[in-house]
């Protein structure tokens, strides 16, 4: 029997479900049964023991063991009673039912009882024994006469409980199995009723796939879903059959049509006057028409396989072909060799064509020998004509009186003129450019075929007829057209007049026109002549370039330049119209860098596109959404009436960005922070609006992300203050308005001086001495940290040098210098340190460089490199603020550091707070395990010092010992230390 997959799945599910059910019920019922039966047996044991006890009181008191035994003998017959024993008040077994002797466990229990209660059992007790030969029992001890007369002991057989549980579980499982079988049968019949029609449908579906629509399966219409599906399927199959028949018929038609078209094209190719070839990507001819063969003096079928370069003459053709290979379309004139004849000039048009996935080149070659000759002739003729006309005119004037004598000559000249006219006509007819002649009112009176072609007409006659019917047929821009006409009528020569025009089929094209007036011999304008070029392609290329210049290529949004342009326009509009309100939103994604780094740039780019679409969807059509690069976007909201509209839009944007995007298989969550400049009327520069929006955006980010902030005065003032501080700091760095202070570091055990930490102070011209906390972040932001850090390093190096000279290099002249994050990560740091060491000649370990734990951990792998470079120069390295940066132990092992400086936040609480003490202790243990020293920072009280001493900390610094000292005072300390030492 083949089981349907539906049934198999149901069966597997039922097996699992029933298996689970059986397991669970077995466990549960065995547990409850065991509990219940154990309680029952215990109470039964207690009852039996109680009954023996009550009937044995007298017998025990009279010490009649046989009578007691007689009482007891009946009990082992009771189900579950394994044994019975009566002990005297002294704990001796007076009567029992054991054979051959009282087991050790029971003897031991009696002995215990005797030991514990002096033989007296005061209350019933229950124990569990596993007695060899008897198996597990519940041993119930029961006092007789409150233990004064003795005690009764009953052993209840635990195996009965196990048997009962086993039987109960077997019954349960048999029942469960029965139900299971019933369910299997029910499920089988149920799934069979579903799967049988489905199988039939599936078989029919396979046949339908092979376009066999005959004999649909017979599914009884029982009104259930399966029957509905079957019915729907049958109907669909029938419709499908109809569709396919229709489709096949249409395809037949289409094939016939295209065959006809192909035949037509072939005929054209065979019969066209121009040579045409198709070359493959390898540059060899694949196909050529007879005209080409004729042109080149070769049989058409011998061309196939020849390199195009050979055909066209290697040198002139190559750049042209290369150009084509890059997908350009090119037209050129070149001299083409001809077999058995002289080379001839030809115009060649090449176009790239993708056929079957590879690039092919289609070339059309036109022999322009005739045209060249005509042009040359025309030029010559014109020159000659002009010369002759001039001479003639002179002659006319000179020989007016000799007119008759010269008539013959004049006839000759006229004949030549006619000849030139004919030649000019040829040029006119065959030019690639459109050539036209207008009457004095600007109406077309003549046009060459090229012109007609440009405007989509088959030949000039039709073009002129169309214009006669509708003088504006080609005009797409009436204003421009009027301007052109006006300039013409004003008698100007018009050059390169570009305008849009309309072809016969309605397409707009760009044309460029040159025209000049034609005057009669009196100078009266009798019309205009000129030529016209189709410059649509050039215009489109220009327009594309324009778009690229002002849009972000990734998202297609306007870029910063275009946004600023729009913003300036809006400012202009607002200035003209005081009621016109606009505002700028500056937005930055909150987690973009993380997403970019973790999911890859392609997901990052997708996210940016997604956000761009969300932004566009969140604003109105008239608003400008721009991307400034990276994850920064700006929105220009124009012509709103009330600020709450802006707030609503900002909220809408935040919500849209917050909604997760499904990109490349990930659900990417991001959020944005938005800064808004709402009051824009007093701004004069677009840049400043953006700057303030940026500032507001940073406030929003700082306030917790995924929110917006409107720029206000306070932000402005803060920005101003920041700017001021930056300016001051820059000046001070230039003028070196800084001082170094030295805070001593001492041995916790002996109090001996162990070194100093150098601390920089800014000697602010107005605010006095400033601690680093007030300016280091500004220095970091502005990059002033580098010159400042160099200055500190130099100063510290110089100080150490001076001290070494005075006190010797072994004196505690070690000075620690703090390195900020930027400073630490600067590539030239090692070189700078080396320079200081070389310049000062100090003992390198006396210079200690400190960096905070968070800096090291944030750039762990780079930090390892930097620390190793520094270590190579022999300086001492310390990790500052330890305990705040969530150090990874594996990194900690790789850092070649010499000391950990325990953060002051732990030290300040270590005498009062258990948790802080535990942390300090852990850090000390950690430092011990790493084999490096630990320094406690910020020790302020004696109690803290005591705690540290107790915890085994070796070095400490803080106000308890000394505040940071000027160099002279530090020197005094050193002097004192060395004097004593």
């Amino acid at each position, binding site marked *: 029997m083949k089981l349907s997959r539906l049934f198999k799945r149901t069966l597997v599910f039922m097996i699992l479900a029933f298996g689970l059910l059986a397991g669970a019920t077995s466990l549960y019922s065995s547990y409850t049964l065991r509990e219940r039966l154990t309680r029952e047996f215990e109470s039964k044991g207690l009852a039996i023991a109680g009954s023996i006890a009550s009937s044995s009181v007298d017998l025990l008191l*009279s*010490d*009649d*063991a*046989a*009578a*007691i*035994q*007689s009482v007891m*003998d*009946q009990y082992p017959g009771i189900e579950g009673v394994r044994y019975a024993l009566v002990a005297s008040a002294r704990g001796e077994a007076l*009567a*029992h*039912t*054991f*054979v*051959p*002797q009282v087991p050790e466990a029971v003897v031991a229990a009696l002995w215990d009882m005797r030991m514990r209660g002096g033989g007296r059992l005061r209350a019933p007790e229950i124990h569990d024994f596993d007695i060899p030969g008897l198996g597990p029992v519940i041993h119930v001890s029961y006092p007789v006469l409150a233990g004064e007369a003795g005690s009764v002991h009953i052993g209840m057989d635990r195996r009965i409980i196990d048997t009962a549980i086993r039987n109960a579980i077997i019954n349960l499982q048999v029942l469960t199995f029965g139900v299971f079988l019933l369910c299997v049968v029910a499920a089988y019949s149920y799934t069979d009723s579903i799967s049988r029609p489905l199988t039939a449908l599936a078989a029919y579906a396979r046949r339908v796939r092979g376009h066999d629509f005959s004999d649909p399966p017979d599914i009884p219409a029982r009104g259930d879903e399966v029957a509905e599906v079957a019915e729907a399927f049958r109907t669909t199959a029938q419709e499908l059959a109809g569709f396919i028949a229709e489709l096949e018929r249409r395809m037949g038609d289409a094939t016939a049509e295209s065959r006809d078209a192909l035949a037509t094209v072939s005929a054209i190719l065979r019969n066209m006057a121009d040579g045409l070839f198709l070359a493959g990507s390898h540059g060899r001819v694949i196909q050529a028409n007879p005209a080409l063969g004729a042109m080149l003096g070769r049989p058409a079928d011998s061309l196939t396989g020849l390199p195009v370069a050979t055909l066209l003459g290697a040198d002139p053709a190559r750049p042209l072909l290369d150009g084509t290979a890059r997908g350009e379309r090119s037209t050129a004139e070149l001299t083409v060799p001809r077999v058995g004849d002289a080379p001839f000039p030809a115009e060649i048009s090449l176009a790239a064509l993708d056929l079957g996935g590879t690039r092919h080149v289609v070339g059309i070659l036109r022999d322009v020998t005739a045209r060249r000759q005509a042009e040359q002739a025309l030029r010559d003729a014109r020159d000659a004509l002009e010369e002759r006309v001039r001479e003639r005119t002179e002659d006319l004037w000179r020989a007016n009186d000799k007119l008759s004598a010269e008539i013959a000559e004049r006839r000759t000249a006229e004949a030549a003129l006619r000849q030139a006219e004919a030649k000019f006509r040829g040029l006119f007819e065959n030019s690639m450019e459109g050539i036209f002649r207008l009457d004095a009112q600007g109406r077309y009176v003549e046009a060459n075929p090229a012109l007609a072609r440009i405007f989509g007409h088959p030949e000039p006659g039709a073009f002129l007829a169309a214009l006669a019917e509708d003088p504006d047929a080609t005009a797409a821009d009436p204003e421009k057209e009027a301007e052109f006409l006006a300039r013409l009528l004003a008698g100007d020569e018009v050059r390169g007049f570009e305008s849009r025009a309309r072809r016969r089929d309605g397409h707009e094209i760009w044309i460029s026109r040159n025209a000049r007036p034609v005057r009669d011999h009196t100078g009266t304008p009798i019309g205009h002549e000129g030529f016209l070029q189709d410059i649509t392609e050039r215009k489109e290329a220009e327009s594309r370039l324009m778009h690229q210049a002002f849009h972000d290529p990734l998202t297609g949004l306007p870029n910063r330049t275009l946004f600023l342009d729009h913003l300036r326009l809006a400012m202009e509009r607002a200035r003209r119209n005081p009621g016109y309100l606009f505002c700028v939103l500056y937005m930055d994604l909150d987690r973009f860098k993380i997403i970019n780094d973790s999911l890859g740039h392609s997901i990052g780019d997708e996210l940016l596109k997604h956000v761009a679409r969300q932004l566009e969807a969140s604003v109105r059509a008239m608003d400008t959404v721009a991307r400034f690069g990276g994850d920064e976007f700006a929105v220009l909201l124009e012509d709103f009436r009330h600020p709450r509209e802006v707030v609503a839009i900002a909220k809408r944007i935040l919500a849209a960005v917050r909604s997760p995007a499904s990109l490349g298989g990930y659900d990417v969550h991001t959020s944005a922070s938005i800064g808004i400049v709402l009051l824009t009327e007093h701004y004069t520069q677009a840049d400043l609006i953006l700057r303030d929006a940026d500032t507001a955006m940073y406030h929003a980010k700082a306030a917790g992300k995924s929110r917006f902030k409107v720029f206000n005065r306070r932000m402005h003032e803060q920005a101003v203050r920041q700017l001021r501080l930056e300016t001051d700091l820059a000046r001070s760095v230039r003028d070196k308005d800084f001082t170094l202070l030295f805070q001593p570091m001492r041995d916790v055990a002996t109090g001996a001086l162990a070194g100093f930490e150098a601390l920089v102070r800014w000697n602010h011209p107005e605010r006095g001495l400033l601690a680093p906390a007030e300016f280091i972040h500004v220095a970091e932001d502005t990059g002033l940290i580098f010159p400042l850090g160099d200055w500190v390093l130099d100063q510290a190096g110089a100080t150490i040098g001076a001290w070494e000279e005075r006190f010797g290099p072994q004196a505690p002249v070690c000075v620690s210098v703090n390195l900020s994050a930027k400073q630490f990560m600067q590539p030239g740091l090692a070189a700078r340190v080396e320079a200081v060491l070389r310049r000062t000649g100090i003992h390198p370990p006396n210079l200690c460089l400190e960096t905070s734990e968070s800096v090291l951990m944030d750039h762990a792998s780079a930090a390892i490199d930097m620390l190793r470079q520094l270590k190579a120069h022999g300086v001492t390295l310390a990790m500052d603020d330890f305990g705040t940066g969530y150090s990874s132990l594996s990194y900690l092992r790789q850092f070649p550091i010499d000391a950990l400086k325990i953060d002051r936040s732990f030290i300040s609480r270590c005498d009062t707070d258990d948790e802080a003490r535990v942390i300090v202790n852990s850090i000390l243990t950690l430092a011990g395990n790493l084999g490096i020293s630990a320094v406690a920072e910020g020790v302020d009280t004696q109690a803290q010092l005591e705690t540290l001493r107790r915890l085994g900390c070796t070095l400490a610094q803080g106000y308890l010992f000394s505040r940071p000292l000027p160099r002279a005072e530090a020197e005094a300390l050193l002097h004192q230390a060395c004097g004593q030492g």
Partner: protein
Amino acid sequence: MPVLRHVFAALFLLVLVPACPARAQGDIVLGMSAAFSGPTRGLGIELYRGAQACFAEVNAAGGVHGRRIVIRALDDRYSPGPAIENTITFAEQGDVFALFGQVGTPTATRVLPLLRRYQGSDLYLLFPLTGAEPLRQPPYARWVFNLRASYAQEARGLVDNFVRQGRTRIAVLHQGDAYGRAGWDGVRKALARFDLTIVAEASHARDTGPEADMGPQVDILARGRPDAVVAVGSSEACAAFIRQARDAGLSVPVAVLSFAGAERLTELLAHAGAAAGRDYTADLALSQAVPSHDDPNLPAAAAYRRAADRFAPPPPPTLVGDGYRPLPYSLAAFEGYLGARLFVEALRHMGPDPHPRLLPEALRALAGQDLGMGEPVAFGPDSNQALTRVHFITVERGRLTPLHDFTRWRK
């Protein structure tokens, strides 16, 4: 009217006869529930046969005051349950004069409460074959009359003799029931008088057969390094123990309480000895609660043998065909005979109109009389036991021989 009077008399008789059917006239019926099957059946059957020998002789001579004495026997298979059922049956039948010769402590001690239950019917238990203390102590002693000395007395006799010979380390093998416990208790209390305790004790199941494995019990007792072993069990169990104890090298004297029939024990040991090619009967001390039928000095013994020879009573009719071969004479049958003699004497003492109510008085009236049992009947106000002396026998050359002292086991 005389006719009418006769009619009334007849009617009166009709009413009265069912009320007291047998006690006025007819046989004196004794109800005997005992082991007539199972390992202990030898005791029950022989006890029955001994009593029947006596009653057959009395009945043959015309009965007591013209009334025959018959035993109605029911088998209790030495189990308390059937024993109780049988006793109730006897009590409810109404025509049973007294209960006679219950065999075994576990059965007899469980029947005791029934005597109190039927105290209004004057149901007495006569001469059960057990030495257990509850039959000799309040509250049940008043419904029981014993012939034999108690197990306590037997135990005391054995312990006294062993201790006298320097054998103070006494071990006990006992049946795991009231009988075994009674023997155990006897030994314990006897030893306590010398400030001694039982050095090792082991029990065995009640229905232990002669081929049973007593290895564990032998090991347990041997570990106590006893000077002597007191065995309180059936002949079969004791035989099994002795055989294996000897095989295991435990050669100390083994004393066996009287409940183990000496003849059966000897037979089993001889049989086993023949099979193993060794003598298992050496160093045995068999205590006896009644004198031996071999004792030539006892008139009762001669009378017993005579009656047994003459009547050779068969086993109880219900049990014919189980292959039991009756012994010509046996200690148990002699005990049955002696009990029957006592009852007959008491019946005679009651005169022509005996009633169970009169039994205690009639039996106590025999106190001090010598009925040829080697000592006077010892019934008294505080004693419901006829005999007090304990006798010892041993096995020599396969024969049961009186044992007068224990000097052979001097240590």
